């Protein structure tokens, strides 16, 4: 079988001077090879499709029993009476992710600028290694460190925030002597460290795309280094940086084990982020599935489906922003 590679010959040339169309025979081996590689690529599509489809099928009984609207707005978990709702957990999942972004984004962007613009060349290599290593450390270890090492100093900070910054509604406490451990705040701090590597590495890539000539131009005009960053690098990389932050948000939403270890699971939405008691969809699945029976299993799958859809949407938006910013700027 001969395949003609589509080539548009320059139309203004006389026929005899037009380049000859290249014909190459695709051998049997090539066809097998292409089919194999295509099959592998299709497997990836298949895995994602299967995830969505099977989770939906298994989620339907629980959604029917509890009612779709109630399932996503109520905050109860009584499988025996078909009363199931993850509304509060959804809120708390997003709250943990927002706290993580509030702490993680400045750190990650600072780190990205440090590696790209400030660090001496030797340090640069070590730092990139450190960021990669931070990404490779298991979530379980983060959780143990968060629970055993971070709890005490951070609850001190939480106490200070509650005493001095309680003009802000989310720093208020319901009772003055409320426990300040195992909270959204502390879980968010742990997750902040965990999402730093992804934000740093993606935004570093984007910032490195800024034409060096423009940076040097800014410096040559007498701008300081911060002036160069503020007026050239950040505006140029803005959409890519936004994308990297969204990617971090997606990771933070799905983080499981570190969050389970740190928080005390509650089902109600808890807007007092400094106080004991928080929750996340993944924490619910990890801590309840061991003794789940019957409809409760379906309910956990439905919760997982909600998480899957949420992270998928965030990730797809983030990726398309990042990809576009890498192409055009």
């Amino acid at each position, binding site marked *: 079988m001969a395949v003609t590679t589509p080539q548009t010959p320059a139309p203004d040339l006389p026929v005899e001077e037009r380049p000859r169309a290249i014909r190459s025979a695709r051998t049997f081996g090539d066809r097998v090879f*292409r089919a194999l590689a295509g099959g*592998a690529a299709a497997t990836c599509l298949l895995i994602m499709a299967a995830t969505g489809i099977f989770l939906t099928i*298994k989620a339907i009984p629980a959604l029917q029993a509890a009612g779709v609207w109630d399932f996503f707005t109520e905050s109860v978990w009584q499988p025996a009476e078909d009363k199931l709702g993850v509304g509060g957990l959804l809120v708390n999942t997003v709250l943990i992710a927002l706290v993580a972004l509030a702490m993680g984004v400045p750190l990650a962007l600072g780190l990205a*600028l440090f590696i790209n613009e400030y660090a001496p060349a030797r340090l640069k290599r070590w730092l990139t290694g450190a960021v990669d290593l931070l990404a490779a450390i298991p979530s379980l270890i983060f959780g*143990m460190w968060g629970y055993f090492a971070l709890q005490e100093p951070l609850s001190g900070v939480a106490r200070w925030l509650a005493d001095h910054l309680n003009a802000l509604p989310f720093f208020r406490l319901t009772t003055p002597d409320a426990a300040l451990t195992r909270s959204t705040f502390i879980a968010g701090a742990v997750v902040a460290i965990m999402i730093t590597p992804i934000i740093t590495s993606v935004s570093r890539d984007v910032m490195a795309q800024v034409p060096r000539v423009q940076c040097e131009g800014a410096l040559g005009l007498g701008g300081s280094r911060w002036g160069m960053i503020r007026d050239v690098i950040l505006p140029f990389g803005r959409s890519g940086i936004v994308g990297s932050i969204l990617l971090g948000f997606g*990771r933070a939403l799905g983080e499981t084990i570190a969050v389970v270890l740190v928080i005390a699971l509650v089902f109600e939405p808890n807007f007092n982020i400094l106080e004991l008691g928080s929750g996340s969809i993944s924490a619910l699945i990890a801590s309840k*599935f061991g003794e789940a029976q019957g409809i409760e299993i379906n309910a956990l799958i439905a919760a997982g489906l909600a998480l899957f859809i949420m992270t998928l949407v965030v990730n797809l938006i983030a990726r398309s922003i990042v990809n576009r910013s890498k192409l055009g700027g």
Partner: protein
Amino acid sequence: MIVDPVVPAEPVPDARAPEDTDVPFRPKQLSAKDRVEYLLSAGSGLAFAWALCLVMDWRAPLTFAIWALVWFLGCTYVLSRDRTSRVVAQDRFVTTLIWLSGLLAVGVLVWMLVFVFLKGVGGLSLSFFTEDMAEVGPLDPGGGIKAALIGTLQQIAIATVISVPIAILTAVYLHEIKGRFATPVRFIVDAMSGLPSIVAGLVVFTIWVNEGGGFSGASAGVALAIMMIPIVTRTAEEILRTIDDGLRESALALGAPQWRAVLQVVLPTARSGLITASILGVARAIGETAPVLLTAFGSSVTNLNPFSGPQANLPLYIWGLLREPNEVSVNRAWSAALVLIMLVLVLFTLARVIGERGARKRGAR
């Protein structure tokens, strides 16, 4: 407008700055005077924070550090604002903050590694590696990670056997074949890399474990493979991208069909990079807890058959012990965590060493 309007094009000699005006002024270079200022600011910051904490009776070291930092930043800003200009002061202020974020990230990493080491090193002994938990009560001494190590080894092997061929072939599809669906496939692989680990476990649980398959090491292997595929694919694609196009074209020009060009020229050239990609995938999968929790479930006895019955593995071993409210269990968990982090570190270093050696070799060619 690119440059701050206040910035003079020429360095204007400041009446208060006695520096030699022939030398162009560079805000990023610190003069001897600047250094003294920084040191004094730091000293006064510490003194201020100490006094403040004493007066207000704040005990937390973190509070002390934050106030010292705030005072230091304020001091350096005001001093350089006074002696030079607003632009310089801002630049230095931000420089300090950015250095701090670098130090903080490295500090957290070191803190975590040291913390795990100190907590876990006491419980390590030879028997910790050769015993399982079958006949060990929660408060008994002894017992170890034998079952967990065997489980981890088998599950990771299964995950690697499944994911590495798929991932490398997908990378080949994306970069060698550049098929019609390359863009959507790349998009999906990216989406997969953001898949929450618990969802990977949940889907295998839904399709296999809960449908009569039961908990097993093999199902954990499949869940881990789902986590590994995107990592290995993206790294492998990056590696293929670094391979010189001339190499491909030479092979094709010599008359090789594409499959031989890829199999005998491109992939062997990329070999070290592909090994790096696979090791990085393994390093990521070895510490995953959420997917294996829903598939392997964990077990205190040694289960040599990954195809039937719950199986232990290292993260599940730690997870199980952390749920038990006693000191002995938690100490055991720390020792196992140290072993786990050591494994990750070894794999990570190995991947980097192989990757760098390979990159050097390719560069020299």
